[in-house]
């Protein structure tokens, strides 16, 4: 079939043949908001323990939750960006369990009526095809506090700063089929969340965490029994965990065993998953609607308002970059992953009176700038070269002031010093030589010095042309206009 021709699906070879891996993700994304989901306490990461805790977050007697509308708006924005159905009525439920960092003894979450229903995320696969990953739902819930087990030999300390911070749990359908697809999904989701400013996607700080559901099956069979791997906190670990878990399940199944539905932990040090609790040990969360909160009702006008205010999303921007700037899928994709990068690139292209070649701008941004930033370990925000400055460099190439080769040296200097291109070119006398007489003199000198090679060339050794170009450029200190060098050499060698 055509589809199989295009790309070989990911399979794990077992003793009994090929296995397909089925993956679904629950992503917990911390909502960007000034205050918590149901209290006015601040949400800044890294504050001193227990300094961002309101009476509500500490579950003092008689305290009541009041929904933070900003968090609701953020969830709606996210739902809209995931092309999902936003539910005008949703319900907050209590998920009951005891733990020291859960002061209320329940987490306020959404169970049967989430704020956002089914949506979709589009993934660009390496073979150029687009895969749709279904979103099952998105709901709002409270985060728990943190237990600190390393502060005292026998006691655990509790930090409630995170207690009550708003999370969006974004649940995918079991549509993912490989570790790579899963990585692409997380990156794409993170990109969308960052575009709309609803989550910073920082997995190290825990503002984005993944629970990974993995099962295996023989291609064409129904779904197998899944295991849920809790709280994996990097994309690399997610991939490792999937691979390990899939192989573990295959081994069991091929040995004639069966998979127990259970919750597992990923041990990053050993690269393996291990059982946390079985289905029998699973908590009975005793969900019921939180009687302290009325059903959450959304005004359709507010939803429309939020929709209208959404920024251009990655997929749309990518299509526009390809269409309007003639970029390849690869270039467009790498430019749009982060909104700031895309904005930076567009500032280069649209600056300078709109005369800059978008493809050249893309090449410079992706190969030179990204390369240099990567090497220096810097973010775009800290780039010593501004969009305007890079535009200036491109303009100097465009109008023939410097050659592309010289431009690379100029760029390195710009990156090191933060100076603009024109100043460096002037300072170092790098202006391209386009004076016919000056170039002709150099060409003549080169030809005079290499009469034997000239003879060889004229007797048919065409390949020597490059040698003459190189010698001429070298003698000009790289400044000679390459086009003119070419033309003059051709004319003179033709004799």
């Amino acid at each position, binding site marked *: 079939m055509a589809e199989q021709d295009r790309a070989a699906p990911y399979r794990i070879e077992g003793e009994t043949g090929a296995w397909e891996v089925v993956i679904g993700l629950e992503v917990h994304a911390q909502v960007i908001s000034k205050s918590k989901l149901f209290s006015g306490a601040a949400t800044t990461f890294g504050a001193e323990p227990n300094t961002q805790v309101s009476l509500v977050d500490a579950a003092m007697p008689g305290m*009541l*939750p009041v929904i933070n509308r900003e968090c609701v708006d953020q969830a709606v924005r996210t739902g809209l960006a995931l092309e999902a159905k936003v539910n005008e009525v949703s319900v907050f439920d209590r998920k*009951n369990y005891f*733990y*020291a960092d859960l002061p209320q003894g329940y987490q306020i979450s959404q169970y049967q009526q989430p704020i956002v229903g089914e949506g979709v995320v589009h993934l660009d696969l390496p073979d150029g095809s687009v895969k749709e990953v279904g979103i099952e739902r998105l709901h709002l819930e409270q985060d728990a506090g943190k237990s600190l087990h390393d502060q005292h030999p026998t006691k*655990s300390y509790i930090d409630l700063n995170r207690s009550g911070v708003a999370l969006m749990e974004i649940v995918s359908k079991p549509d993912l089929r490989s570790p790579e697809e899963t990585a692409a999904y997380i990156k794409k989701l993170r990109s969308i969340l960052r575009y709309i400013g609803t989550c910073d996607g920082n997995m190290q700080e825990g503002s984005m965490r993944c629970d990974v559901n993995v099962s295996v099956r023989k291609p064409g069979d129904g779904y197998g029994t899944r295991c849920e791997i809790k709280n994996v906190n990097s994309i690399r670990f997610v991939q490792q965990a999937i691979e390990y878990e899939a192989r573990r399940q295959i081994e069991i199944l091929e040995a004639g065993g069966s998979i127990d539905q259970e919750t597992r932990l990923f041990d990053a040090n050993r690269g393996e998953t291990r059982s946390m609790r079985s289905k029998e040990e699973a908590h009975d969360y005793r969900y019921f609607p939180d009687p302290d*909160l*009325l059903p959450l009702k959304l005004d359709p006008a507010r939803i429309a308002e939020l929709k209208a205010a959404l920024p251009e999303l990655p997929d749309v921007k990518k299509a526009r970059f390809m269409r309007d700037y003639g970029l390849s899928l690869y270039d467009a994709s790498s430019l749009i992953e982060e909104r700031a990068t895309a904005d930076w690139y567009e500032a280069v292209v649209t600056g300078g009176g709109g005369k800059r070649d978008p493809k050249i701008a893309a090449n410079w941004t992706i190969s030179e700038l990204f390369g240099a930033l990567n090497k220096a370990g810097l973010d775009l925000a800290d780039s010593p070269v501004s969009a305007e400055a890079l535009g200036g460099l491109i303009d100097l190439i465009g109008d023939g002031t410097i050659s592309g080769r010289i431009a690379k040296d100029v760029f390195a200097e710009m990156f090191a010093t933060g100076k603009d291109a024109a100043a460096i070119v002037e300072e170092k006398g790098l202006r391209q030589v386009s004076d016919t007489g000056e170039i002709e003199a150099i060409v003549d000198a080169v030809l005079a010095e290499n009469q034997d090679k000239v003879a060889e060339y004229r007797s048919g050794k065409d390949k020597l042309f490059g040698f003459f170009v190189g010698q001429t450029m070298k003698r000009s200190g790289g400044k000679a206009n390459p086009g003119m060098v070419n033309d003059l050499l051709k004319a003179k060698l033709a004799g």
Partner: protein
Amino acid sequence: MPGLFDLDLVAARDALRAREITSTELTAAYLARIEATAGLNAYITVTADRAMAMAAASDARLAKGEGAALEGLPVAIKDLFCTEGVLTTAASRILDGFKPTYESTVTANLWRAGAVMLGKTNMDEFAMGSSSGTSYYGPAVNPWRGAQDAGTPLVPGGSSGGSAAAVAGWAALAATGTDTGGSIRQPASFTGIVGLKPSYGRCSRWGIVAFASSLDQAGPMTRTVRDAAVMLSAMAGHDPKDSTSAAEALPDLEASLEAGVKGLRIGVPAEYRVDGMPSEIEEIWARGIAWLRDAGAEIVDISLPHTRYALPTYYIVAPAEASSNLARYDGVRYGLRVEGENLSAMYANTRGAGFGAEVQRRVLIGTYVLSAGYYDAYYRKAQRVRALIRRDFDEAFGRVDAILAPTAPSDAFAVGANEDDPVKMYLNDVFTVPASLAGLPGMSVPAGLSARGLPLGLQVLGRMFDEPMVLRVGRAIEKAAAFTARPAMLEGV
């Protein structure tokens, strides 16, 4: 010249404004009464110093001709309301030593209105009970005694029994209560005072220790219907800190108090005639019906067909919510902690020692009805029945302006009675829980004495947010009943 204790809330308010008395002397007199009635165990905490300081401040304002609605009036607060810097226990050991850093909205409203805090009153632990006998601080006692059996202490009802005993025993001019399934109305009936449970949402629940969030509602416990109107006016109001607080503006509760019942249609629900109901309850109800008819009301027989399911529904919904609301008492952050070898053991030890038997029973029931496999059969079904009960009332209130029913199925029983029989105890709520489940306002008004010489109340129920109608009909009952009987202990006070 009548004595200080002859003044009800409104009369004392007027006397204070007329500068005939001072808040300092009124407050001192009530503090002395609290000491004299210590045997009632009505208070868990008496805040004498604070009371005198508040009284002095009120006197200073009154002297300048200032003063808010309740300026200088000494009141008692059920120990379910969090009061800043004052021990707040919910009558439970688990809140041992807990002094909130915050003031509940309702009490803050009262202090803003100038009221003086006498102290925190005894109650059933976490408001779970109908006798005020489940308190960790020992049972509260009714000021009333049976005519033939004056030696037997009686319960003041519950859960707001301490507040009821304080008001009935003149150890407070008025008090706050909370009512989840009858906890204001039943003790009011048992102690011969007025108890008003407002519509759900009228009073903010912020800062009130939660029992069952969808039912809990604060209200006044007073000597007269007018006092109740005055107290509630100060307590109620929209509170953005409580998402279930009603946005509806509170009407002038005194405006139509004396309007009478002429032309009103009063419903009498057939289903409140329950099997085994003592004849004297039936009789006092019939008397109430006659009073209203004589005053010009039209008596309408109505049906509330799902009434018989109200009690079982209540005893699923309330424990379910309570089981979750009480999860926060885990020994980690405040109150009692009993150490254990690990976290689970600490929880078990703390909650085992901190909660009394009735609270544990309800937490267990609540946990059970919410658990996987039972949720549909119990909690979900109870919610459906609750909706039907609400619909019964909606339909009835399409035909009538108010409903008249007994408050409780008996007069006050002996301290210690019913304790080994939870279901019998729960039956005390049979007439009060339907309105709680529907969120409707209800008021108990003293109507007469039982054969044992104990008070019996009648209950007036109204439409959602129609407290003025409840008060108006209640006032008509109060006038007709002319209930002037007092507990023997007040003789000579």
